[in-house]
């Protein structure tokens, strides 16, 4: 399913064509294209002049030291920064050719098409079933009881959680382990059938087994979704992603992309010495 946004004029298409320029990674068509993106918090620049494109059905990892703007970049893609007081975004983020920051674009619709999973599992205080059904209900989808059950089931299967919860869907989400809660959050995001999935350090609070399950899950769903993953764990980026974007703060502590490319290249033969030093543990 692709995003359909009604616009009042034809300017957006022109903007989309212009966004073709800039740093491009991946083999397929670009789902997300970012052009000259800068974000400020209360006037202080956090990231500046970001130009990057993300390919369809690829996993792209964004890595870099603390404070380099990884999460800021991620949140800019589905306008989550709108919810942060003092945040000011300039530049363009194109989703399937439409600038998500255009005045006539509904950020709620954007967020339903570009789902997000956060550092810590944040299930709602509902049952397992209702957590996954939440997005479907909120989006006002008219589904029969059977259809709703099917959509919840499909999402839980994709999130590799179905077998563990199928007999207790009415149990409280908090009864699940941390790893299961995080997969529930992924199921909740997948239930509304997004095209892009943003993950902000999704395994930072999980044990190694749960982390491995999430990583396997990401690989198993990549053919259906475009996945952008922020991680502090460089080896996770190396294991999971097809492409890697490296960010680094400049001398003013403003985050910039210093290198991007196939993960194999970044981790075996990076071109930028700062990347080399960072991934080798010499800085950061």
């Amino acid at each position: 399913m692709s995003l359909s946004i009604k616009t009042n004029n034809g300017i957006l298409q022109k903007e989309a064509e212009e966004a073709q320029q800039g740093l491009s990674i991946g083999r397929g068509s670009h789902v997300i294209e970012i052009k000259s993106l800068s974000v400020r918090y209360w006037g202080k620049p956090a990231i500046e002049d970001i130009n990057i494109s993300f390919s369809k059905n690829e996993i792209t990892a964004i890595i870099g030291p603390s404070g380099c703007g990884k999460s800021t970049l991620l949140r800019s893609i589905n306008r989550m920064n709108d919810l942060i007081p003092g945040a000011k975004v300039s530049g363009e983020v194109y989703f399937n050719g439409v600038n998500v920051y255009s005045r006539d674009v509904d950020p709620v619709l954007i967020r339903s098409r570009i789902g997000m999973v956060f550092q810590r599992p944040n299930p709602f205080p509902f049952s397992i079933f209702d957590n996954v059904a939440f997005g479907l209900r909120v989006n006002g989808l008219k589904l029969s009881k059977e259809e709703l059950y099917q959509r919840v089931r499909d999402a839980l299967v994709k999130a590799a959680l179905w077998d563990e919860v199928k007999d207790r869907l009415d149990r409280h989400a908090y009864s699940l382990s941390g790893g299961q809660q995080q997969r529930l959050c992924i199921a909740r995001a997948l239930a509304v059938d997004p095209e892009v999935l943003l993950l902000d350090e999704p395994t930072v609070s999980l044990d190694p087994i749960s982390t491995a399950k999430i990583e396997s899950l990401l690989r198993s769903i990549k053919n259906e979704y475009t996945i952008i993953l922020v991680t502090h764990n460089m080896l996770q980026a190396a294991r999971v992603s097809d492409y890697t974007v490296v960010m680094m703060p400049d001398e003013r502590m403003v985050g910039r992309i210093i290198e991007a490319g196939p993960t194999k290249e970044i981790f075996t033969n990076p071109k930028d010495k700062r990347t080399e030093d960072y991934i080798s543990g010499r800085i950061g």
Partner: protein
Amino acid sequence: MSRILDIGLKHLTELVSEMFRLSISAVDTAVSGLLEYRSVQEKVYDAAKDLRGLYEEVSDIATELIARYQPVARDLRYIRSCMMVSYDLFRVGRYALEISRSSRMLGSLLECDLSPVREAGNIVREMLKITVEAFRDLDVGRAREATRMDERIDEIYREKLKSIMLERNGSRECDVAVALALRNLERIADHATYICEAVEYIVAGHPRHKAAS
């Protein structure tokens, strides 16, 4: 602040350095023995045996470093190269042993014209010395210098084979002894070339088989 990985890398470097020392010594001994009609097989055998042991040790440590520290980028390339280089040096030891054996197998070589072996032996020994420096300093320029010397070794070997086929002047024992020695020196030079390619791989990331092209 140094990394835990650095301790392992240092250890690997020391082992590979020891392998360089032993392999150069083995080639020196084997070639001198042949040229001076001395039996040096036992001494070269000991060196070849030690090289085999060190090759296993380098492999073990490299595998452990990869498993425990998941090195990336240049660290990974260096560790991978140490494994490959240690195999090359182990093979150099084996070829040196073959040189030392050939003289014993074929009996007296007093009547043989060993000048091609002398020339090839000198070039190979020089080549190995430059290769050591290239690897130690990760000096691509020196590595390429050593690689270029391989051409002359190939030339000497080909010339000898050609002369054996076309001219029937020398004794069969001499022809076989010289051809075998040159063949082994030619293989040693090839392994030195592989090591030089590893230097390029570590420094620039060019895959070893493409580094020379």
